[in-house]
């Protein structure tokens, strides 16, 4: 009884404001009122840079709208302008029927709007408990006291956070911080929520849960969500998305039609086919080549597919539809040949350069790294995956000798950890998470400084720098101040600085975080040549799951522990043998389908409007699945077998075994 009353009360609260909003701009036509956000020619300049160069954007009501783009694309500026907390320099901004022109008109949209700024939990108050945080946001939005408690209960139940209501925000895990941030954004039941990179730095499981929750909210509450992400592989999660780069929206539309709109296909070949395919670029000038997952990947217009296949002696290994990343590459005018010499996995005889044996590191009563064991051979790229706070950086800092382990042992470049630190340091390179070069110094000055720190002789250093500038393509930038380089080049410079002294072991901590797809591809190309030509042992951390494919071996860390490890192929086949193949289902009601499947014990995830489900066994089990969905009243419009993404691999390994 009380619950019904509550719900009725809530819609009462929302209704008058909606009326008010539409009343303010009486002259609106119906088409405009259908849009939650409408931007026209929006320009935003900062002192030295231009963040937005004339953005047009329309977001329809009730949509999960994605803004995808690398760091510095202008996503945050755009979201802040829409939220009315940042003034645009030019252009029209209409949100929820209100034209935002000044501080006063911005106030009119804020009652119906929730903003979650960038940075995991950074807008929350660390020393306040979960409930105190929620109550504070409720007070900020002047929610009637009689509904506050019930609304908090509802949100806590929905996010499964009820148990943690009294826990201080600073003691929450990344995923829980993210949920709390979302709850605080939802507490006043806004019609529009704006989430700035909510999934950055969150582990795959929490990420999966987050997207499902968001989907559910958008569907059930007719909420409009504007969500930004730096990960291209999250594209499929949105109803509509806009691809941003350098202050402009390059492409905009539903993910399917954007990908299909390329009228292209992707053919995969073995890495060895590189020599035969590169000359083909002369005849097939539209073709784009790059490396992924140890294979050569050729994107080309559908119309030229037959011609290419006929010209080649060996047929492609497989064929997939083009992705958003392909669209990005085309839109920014990336070079057509982005292939590189893929480093094969090292032979089993290769010496082990990095060995960790039950490494533990505690800070007070907090265990940052919990009995981690791994080994990396010369010529191997080892990927350490995990969210912020999973313990990756702490592990690297122990292996580089910066931090002493609490327990366990290890060996780097033939020396035991904690001993002969100086000798070891001459033989390892380390590129830290923060940009550790001097932004005011030029590229050349930085390199000279780092070379001298490592004790290189003048002539030797000169040779290394010449070689390195050429190798990284930074020759023309050598006199530019390091701080003024674009992020992709800055990271290449940092890599170069870390390998000037020709180390045998290289540690890279989040080297590609925030770098655009083109920059990533180029960076990984450098890593592969380095490993192949110099036989370096390379340990790299990332929280982008799609980069996992570039590594020979992987370990996924969660809360200080390694929860899964092996080569990408091994992990895939383990998942296949344990949980079956992945099928993508198109259904009319994603939430119901998901709930039904989970109830029946299937391992299923939401992927935008699709449901991905692991189906073990033969066609019979697929039939059983269809029947069960049918029974629940779900209409399946399409069903297709797909490759599991690395994210799905990890989520299934953890959830499926738990």
């Amino acid at each position, binding site marked *: 009884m009380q619950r019904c009353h509550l719900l009725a009360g809530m819609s009462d609260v929302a209704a008058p404001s909606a009326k008010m909003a539409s009343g303010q701009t009486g002259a609106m036509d119906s088409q405009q009122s259908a849009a939650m956000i409408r931007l026209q020619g929006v320009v935003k300049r900062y002192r030295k840079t231009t963040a937005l160069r004339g953005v047009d954007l329309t977001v329809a009501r009730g949509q999960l709208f994605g803004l995808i783009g690398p760091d510095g694309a202008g996503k945050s500026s755009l979201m802040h302008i829409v939220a009315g*907390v940042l003034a645009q320099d030019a252009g029209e901004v209409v949100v929820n029927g209100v034209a935002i022109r000044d501080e006063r008109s911005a106030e009119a949209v*804020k009652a119906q709007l929730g*903003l979650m700024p960038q940075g995991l939990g950074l807008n929350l108050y660390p*020393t*306040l408990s979960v409930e105190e945080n929620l109550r504070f946001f409720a007070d*900020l939005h*002047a929610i009637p006291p009689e509904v506050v408690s019930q609304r908090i209960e509802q949100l806590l139940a929905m996010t499964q956070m009820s148990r943690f209501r009294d826990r*201080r925000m600073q003691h929450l895990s990344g995923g829980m911080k993210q949920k709390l941030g979302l709850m605080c954004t939802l507490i006043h039941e806004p019609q529009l929520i704006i989430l700035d990179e909510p999934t950055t730095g969150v582990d795959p499981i929490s990420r999966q849960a987050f997207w499902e929750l968001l989907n559910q909210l958008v569907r059930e509450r007719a909420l409009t969500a504007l969500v930004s992400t730096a990960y291209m592989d999250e594209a499929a999660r949105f109803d509509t998305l806009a691809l941003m780069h350098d202050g402009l929206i390059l492409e905009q539309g539903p993910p399917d039609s954007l990908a299909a709109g390329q009228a292209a296909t992707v053919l995969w070949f073995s890495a060895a086919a590189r020599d035969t395919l590169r000359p083909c670029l002369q005849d097939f000038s539209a073709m784009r080549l790059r490396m992924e997952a140890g294979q050569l990947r050729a994107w080309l217009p559908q119309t030229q597919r037959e011609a290419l296949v006929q010209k080649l002696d060996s047929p492609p290994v497989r064929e997939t539809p083009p992705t958003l990343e392909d669209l990005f590459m085309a839109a920014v005018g990336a070079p057509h040949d982005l292939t590189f010499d893929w480093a094969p996995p090292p032979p089993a005889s290769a010496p082990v350069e990095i060995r960790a044996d039950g490494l533990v590191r505690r800070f007070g009563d907090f265990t940052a790294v919990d009995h981690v064991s791994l080994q990396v051979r010369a010529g191997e790229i080892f990927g350490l995956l995990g969210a912020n706070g999973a313990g990756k950086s702490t592990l690297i800092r122990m292996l580089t000798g910066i931090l002493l382990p609490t327990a366990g042992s290890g060996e780097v470049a033939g020396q035991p950890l904690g001993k002969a630190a100086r000798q070891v340091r001459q033989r390892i390179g380390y590129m830290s998470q923060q940009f550790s070069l001097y932004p005011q110094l030029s590229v050349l000055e930085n390199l000279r400084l780092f070379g001298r720190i490592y004790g290189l002789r003048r002539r030797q250093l000169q040779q290394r720098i010449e070689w390195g500038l050429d190798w990284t393509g930074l020759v023309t930038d050598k006199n530019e101040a390091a701080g003024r380089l674009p992020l992709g080049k800055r990271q290449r410079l940092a890599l170069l600085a870390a390998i000037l002294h020709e180390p045998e072991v290289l540690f890279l901590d989040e080297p590609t975080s925030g770098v655009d797809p083109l920059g990533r591809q180029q960076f990984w190309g450098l890593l592969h040549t380095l490993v192949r030509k110099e036989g370096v042992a390379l340990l790299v951390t990332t929280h982008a799951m799609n980069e996992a494919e570039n590594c020979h071996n992987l370990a996924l860390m969660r809360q200080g522990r390694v929860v899964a490890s092996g080569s990408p192929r091994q992990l895939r086949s383990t998942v296949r043998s344990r949980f079956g193949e992945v099928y993508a289902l198109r259904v009319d009601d994603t939430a119901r389908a998901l709930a039904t499947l989970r109830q029946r014990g299937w391992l299923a995830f939401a992927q935008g409007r699709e449901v991905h489900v692991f189906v073990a066994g033969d066609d019979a089990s697929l039939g059983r699945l269809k029947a069960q969905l049918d029974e629940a009243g779900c209409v399946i419009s399409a069903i297709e077998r797909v490759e599991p993404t690395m994210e799905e691999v990890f989520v299934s390994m953890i959830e499926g075994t738990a």
Partner: protein
Amino acid sequence: MNLRHIRALALKESREILRDRIYLALAFLVPVLMMVVLGHGLVLEVRHVPMAVWNQDKGPLSRDFVDRFRLSEYFDYRGELTGDQAVEQALKRGDVRFVLIVPPHFSERLSRGLTAPVQTLIDGQFTYHARVASGYVQAITARFNQDRIQDWLVRREGLPPQRVQQQLSPVKLEVRYLYNQALKSEWSIAPGLIMLIMLMAPALLTALGVVREKESGSIFNFYASNVRRVDFLIGKLLPYVAISAINLLVLTAMALWVYGAPFKGSASVYAVASLLYIFAAGGIGLLVSVLVRSQAAAALITMLGTMIPGFMFSGLMMPISAMSPEAQREAHLFPAMHDLEVVWGVFLKGQGWDFLWPQVALIGLYAVVVLTLAWVLFHKRVKR
């Protein structure tokens, strides 16, 4: 004004402060520490100057002469030295800052009615201290000379000593110091420091409190809500005013009982003026926080912006009337000058409302102006 918003903000802020140990320490320990450190460091009296003597005479007169220095509270006798080298080393090492050298035959020459030279070596690094110390030396020497003349006259003329004294110094100087009869510099310094600290601490805390949210991004919670600017500023300011009010009581207690200052005037004037002054100081902090984005910049600007007026333009180090005309005009721009007048007025001069109301009004006006300025400059829809 929306009381719910203000209450929520103030409550949240207080919780954060109380649960963050470092911030809590900053809020309550720093003012006390400043009072202790500056209170002892700023004492302007020169006493207990470490000294040594190289007495090459050893006669009765030289011993009398040296004893006058040894027994003086202005000097701290550290021992006897012998030889130029020992003297030089003691001064160089900084063991002593003053050395008295009595040459041989001092007593003999004086007894024979001749003059006797005496050398004093004073460390001139601290010019003020050196000058004061040299004044003490001259005074002690003059006194010694006068006693010698007195002795001589008594012996030669057979007059009673009292008579001789009257004849020697016919003008009797009667000095009475008002408001701080004993000229104890602590009495003036301690209340003066309250003025200084109550300007710096509230400004610093408030500025950091706001800029912290700018750095983390939680300021967007207000930007994106319908909380009014004035409510935000008040809600943010109130906890720091409360903390500062507690600090005010602590510092006042320290001035009274640690430094022994008297409190002769109106407590109500002191309370009202101090509270307004805290608001003004907090307002300065808010103003700074509106203009800058990082905690480091906020701390630096607030420190400079409060320390300079607090020290230089308040009258604490130098009377306003002794400043150049420009400096005097600048002094009037800061509330520090008026608060110092109030503080010294109530502690030392025993003044009340009748005398101090203009100062209190000016402090209040200052608070209103600064807070209004902060409000005008604070925007929820920012430019960058």
